[in-house]
């Protein structure tokens, strides 16, 4: 496991721990009706304007603002040298998950008024972010996160083919079956709708096909478990590569339209959030400051 993965794991662990603690600690309060909450002992602490609730809102807001650094890294030229874009995206995603959680706890599940628009916009941004992350993965990239050029795509395709050809001795019938699995149908042979459906369904289908192959290899070959796993991973990688390459154009178009949803909601969220912050600050709700 790389340092990057360890740091990410720790961040998500932190998010999970904080969330779990607040849900357990404030569960009795959060699950009460709005009418009964003001009479709960935790109301003064966990209400949106309370010591804890207000703090969660401020921290959540700061995390959401920090998400904008990803855009800066992406579009500001002087920041292009500040690390891999993939790592920035990982942090961006973590902020996009943790921030809404904290803001949700800040609202104490009480949604009303104009600020609720900001909240639901935030949730739209977060959920669309999950889909965007999926689309992002459907485009073959370098380790640094940049998209592969057409030349790089061809080179990658060739490398994976050679890896499969270097497979140990396997019965010809089984080998041909493995190679067939590594391929992906040409999307031009089916309609667009059918192709997208097949694309979305391929992930599930591939999972079961690999499981079947693993069983066959155990029964009909003399390969040990390590070799079988390595072989299947290679098959899976080539299959995914072929599938992503086949739908590369579609993925690009979807990602373009995804930006048209993800960003406007983010704009709305930030605009109303700023209004909300300004209003409460003017009215004197400055937390501990």
């Amino acid at each position, binding site marked *: 496991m790389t340092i990057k993965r360890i740091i990410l794991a720790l961040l998500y662990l932190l998010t999970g721990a904080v969330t779990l603690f607040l849900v357990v600690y404030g569960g009795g309060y959060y699950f009460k009706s*709005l009418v009964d909450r003001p009479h709960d002992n935790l109301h003064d602490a966990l209400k949106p304007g309370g010591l804890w609730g207000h703090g969660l809102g401020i921290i959540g807001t700061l995390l959401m603002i920090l998400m904008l650094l990803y855009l800066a890294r992406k579009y500001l030229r002087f920041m292009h040298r500040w690390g891999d874009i993939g790592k920035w995206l990982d942090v961006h995603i973590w902020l996009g998950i943790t921030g809404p959680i904290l803001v949700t706890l800040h609202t104490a599940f*009480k949604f009303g*008024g104009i600020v609720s*628009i900001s909240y639901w916009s935030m949730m739209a941004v977060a959920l669309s972010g999950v889909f965007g992350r999926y689309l992002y993965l459907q485009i073959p990239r370098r380790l640094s996160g940049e998209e592969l050029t057409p030349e790089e795509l061809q080179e990658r395709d060739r490398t994976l083919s050679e890896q499969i050809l270097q497979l140990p001795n396997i019965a010809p019938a089984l080998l041909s079956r493995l190679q067939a699995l590594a391929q992906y149908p040409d999307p031009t042979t089916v309609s667009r709708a059918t192709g997208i459906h097949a694309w979305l369904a391929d992930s599930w289908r591939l999972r079961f096909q690999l499981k079947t192959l693993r069983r066959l290899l155990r029964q009909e070959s003399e390969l040990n478990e390590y070799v079988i796993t390595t072989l299947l991973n290679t098959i899976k990688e080539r299959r995914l590569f072929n599938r992503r390459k086949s739908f590369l154009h579609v993925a690009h178009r979807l990602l*373009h339209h995804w930006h048209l949803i993800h960003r406007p*909601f983010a704009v709305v969220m930030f*605009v109303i959030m700023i209004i909300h912050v300004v209003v409460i600050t003017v009215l004197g709700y400055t937390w501990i400051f």
Partner: protein
Amino acid sequence: MITRHHISCFTRVLYCGLIVIFTTLPALAQISPGKLSAAHQALEGIANCTQCHQIRAEVSKEKCLTCHQVLVARIAQGRGYHASKEVADGSCSSCHREHNGREYDLIYWPQGIKGFNHASTGYALEGAHQGKECRSCHKPDLISASAFVGDKTVRSEKTFLGLNRDCLACHTDEHQEQLTDRCLDCHTETAWSPAAKYNHNNAKYKLTGKHSPVECLKCHPWIKSNTKSKAGLLEKKQRLGSFAKYQGLAFAGCADCHKDVHGGRLGADCGKCHTTEGFKTGGSALGFDHSRTAYPLQGKHLQVECKRCHVSGDMTRSLAHGRCCDCHREDHGSVFAARPDSGKCEACHTVEGYSPSRYTLEDHQRSRYPLTGSHLAVPCNRCHVPIQGSHGQQIANFDLQYRDCADCHKDVHQGQVNLWTERGGCAFCHTTETWHRITFDHSKAQFQLEGKHREILCLKCHYIQSSGEGKQVWMKPLARECSGCHKDVHQGQFLQKGESAILCEKCHQAGGWTDLKFTHNRDSRFVLDGAHEKVPCRSCHKPVAIQGQLTNRYRPLDSRCADCHQQIPKAGNK
């Protein structure tokens, strides 16, 4: 030229605009975190935020009090719950929390409305007030609208303000302004009745004796009310439309309340005879002049408690008093009924006391049994011995049978002299003068008294003999032989053969022991003659011991000369 990039940018702007418009339109009305409560819904809207919120100062108490003016005055005066220590230092919003929706009640009772410490309002609920529903007092009918002048925020059906603490603000003036409005001077909050703190002794007319437990309404009657009670309170009284009278009651004289059962016969000053301890127990001892009645009290009657005669307790009830026995118990029964006066008590007794009786000896002498002799000295109760009366008490017995002495006296002879008493009773021998002076004529007896026998006491012969029944005079059978009474001093020397008793009368006679009728020459076989005539008896009848008793020897005595003269010298002159 419009490029694809321009179209893309336009599309994004269009997206943003549509999203902002469609999402903010419904929310334009408010920017608040939630709807206000129903009480404050008029303040809904962005323009009204600063009605409650202070710029840079959150929600301020002053903002709240700007509208709730009635509280400003009460807090300034230190009145009510909002001026209490519990909340005086807190902000309004710490209790009255807003933006929780229309249904949220701004007034929250942490321990429930029943658990509210009413004492914190400065008016502690006590007694019957404690269990009442809040709205039974805090209701529009009882709330004074004048308390909220200038404060439009107060709604009488919701507020807990505006109640006057005076009792009459809620309760009907049961006394209809006869008394002061300081109800708690007499009543407690526990119950209207009885008026536990009222002390009638503080009134002009103090209650004493039997007046104390009398129900108030006995003296303070219900009269018709001229005013109406407050709605919802004391419905029963309202329905009755009456109240107890406490003013204008006459109490100078007893007759102001009490009926003169004597019909004016005994005057108007009841206190001369009666006290408040009880009409029937006041008592003559306090000065009632019984002589004004048909039966003046005299003697011992003056000391008797009234209720001993007036047992019913009703002093004015006419009592029969013609005869002593109308009150007193008849102890003697009908013993004296045969008297000419039918046995009137006053013939023997007076009101000065039952005992001693004024029945004198002279009276007794005129009775069927006049006293004579020793009877005159006998105490009455020796004859009229106490017996148990018909009521179980000890009374003198006047029902005596006095025909025979034995009716009173015991027959000490135990029937030995019945022969005589049947002829003439005890008086045949005795008189009332004395027991021992016997009048018995002994000549009528079988044994005639003669000589010395006439001189001796009866008991010398009729000696007292002790028997199982005590001492008694032994009358019969007495032996008529001398030896029946006398001792044979001759030790049987004269007992003849074939006889059971000695015939003393052959020698002795009633004239005395020495009054002998014995003639030596006639009655003995030895004739005294000669010098023998002059010889003392003892010279021949010398003392000898017979059966251990010294006695003279009479028989057998040898009649030869030598038996007596053996000591005569041979050369003598005989």
